[in-house]
């Protein structure tokens, strides 16, 4: 049976080692083609939820299906991860290579693409971001807005089937936010975006859900 959901969480429980319980019996579906916003108070576990979906942390109970496939082991998550472009909250956590092109090439090379294919992907990604002359710039020296765009680029370069973005507009000025909106519109992919930024959300998503106390509830559409 082919599932209609890209992401399915069923009765997930999670707590940090020795720490407080974050989720208990949490369920969540991300349907095909959705452009979904996830909101919730500080500390409600939004980032934790995203890391659980990516298999970067391990749940204590429950079922996760990504692209219809159950994900249990690291190898299964690894396969699914390559199809999800994940953009971290802090671009500094994501960008560690000397230049922009190295950072964009990192994902495709991990996927086993050849240098030639990778070079082509780098060019196309920079074009999509409208940052063609940034190819050889030193990533560390870029502005926050530029870093954010590049970090979205590093996710897009893996040619994913969907994107997950964690607080993509934190610390960005209006102009930079504008360009993030542009890139999200241009990339033509489904995405799940976590944010506190209401104005931004209104422009990029078609539906919203709210995470509160281990439950995810649908919010009225715009």
């Amino acid at each position, binding site marked *: 049976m082919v599932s209609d959901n890209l992401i399915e969480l069923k009765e997930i429980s999670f707590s940090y080692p020795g720490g407080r319980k974050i989720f208990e019996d949490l369920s969540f579906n991300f349907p095909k083609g959705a452009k979904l916003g996830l909101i919730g108070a500080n500390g409600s576990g939004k980032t934790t939820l995203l890391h659980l979906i990516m298999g970067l942390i391990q749940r204590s109970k429950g079922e996760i299906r990504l692209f219809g496939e159950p994900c249990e082991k690291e190898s299964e998550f*690894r396969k699914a*991860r390559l199809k999800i472009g994940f953009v971290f909250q802090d671009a*500094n*956590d994501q960008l*560690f290579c*000397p230049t922009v092109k190295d950072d964009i090439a*990192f994902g495709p*090379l*991990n996927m086993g693409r050849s240098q030639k294919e990778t070079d082509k992907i780098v060019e196309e990604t920079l074009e999509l971001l409208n940052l063609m002359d940034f190819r050889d710039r030193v990533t560390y020296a870029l502005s926050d807005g530029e870093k954010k765009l590049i970090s979205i680029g590093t996710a897009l370069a893996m040619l994913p089937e969907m994107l997950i973005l964690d607080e993509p507009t934190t610390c960005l000025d209006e102009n930079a936010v504008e360009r993030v909106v542009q890139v999200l519109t241009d990339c033509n992919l489904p995405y799940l975006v976590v944010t506190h930024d209401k104005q931004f959300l209104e422009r990029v998503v078609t539906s919203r859900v709210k995470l509160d106390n281990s439950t995810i509830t649908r919010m009225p559409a715009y």
Partner: protein
Amino acid sequence: MCGNCVQDDGVGVDLQEASETPNAKRPSSLRMIDTCPRTRILAAIIFAFVVASLSSISSASLALIFSLIITLSSQKPIIELVKRLLVVNAFIIFLWFMLPFSFSTPGTVIASLGPLKVTSQGVTLAALITLKANAIFFTVVALLTQGPLYEIALAGKSLGAPKKLVNLILLSSRYFHVIFAEYQRLRLAMRARGFNSNFSRHTFLSLSNLMGMLLVRSWDRADRIHKAMLARGYDGDLHASSNFHFSQADVLFSLAIILVTIILLVFEWFPTI
């Protein structure tokens, strides 16, 4: 293999334990926590060097027994210690593979595996090292990881360790956790982009870039820390205050250690007793 990441993460968890558990003041039977860190430093150093000088199995066995008594009285969680023991003994195991077979002076052959001859002297030497290594390990860990590291550093200062060295220890142990957390976040983000540490050019380049990035960011962070320190009147010294005093527990503990040392040395010099 992702095993690597998991191992790295494992270390991270241990670290947090290591830094947090000592703060918890557990009641201890000998109330070792009551002893002054200065006493513990001196005791650990004297005991460790005396044990390092031992050359007979009987005295080294006795040293191991004493060290276990000290460990038990410090009430350190034993499971935590066993994890470290494995690492410490990895080299010892290596010596067990080498020494029994490679004793060069003509020794008493007690077994042979083809061309390899096992000598009793080789086995004795390996056993001696095993006893001494573990005796020192237990004592040092029991005595010096009893309280937070900064306490030991400050005690070192009051015992005459150079001020600059103590400042280095204080600052680097403080920021090690920050940098290690930064390393873990970068590593997590690499995993999210499908990074798999294997024996390849791509892996070496990626890990080197990661290392370089940690250096660059720490350099800038150091700059910010320095400015923030200056803003609060930093003049080259951290002025961390310590309030050490020699209590009754210290007197008792010092006497115990002196007694133990004398017993060990007597056994060393008169092994026939």
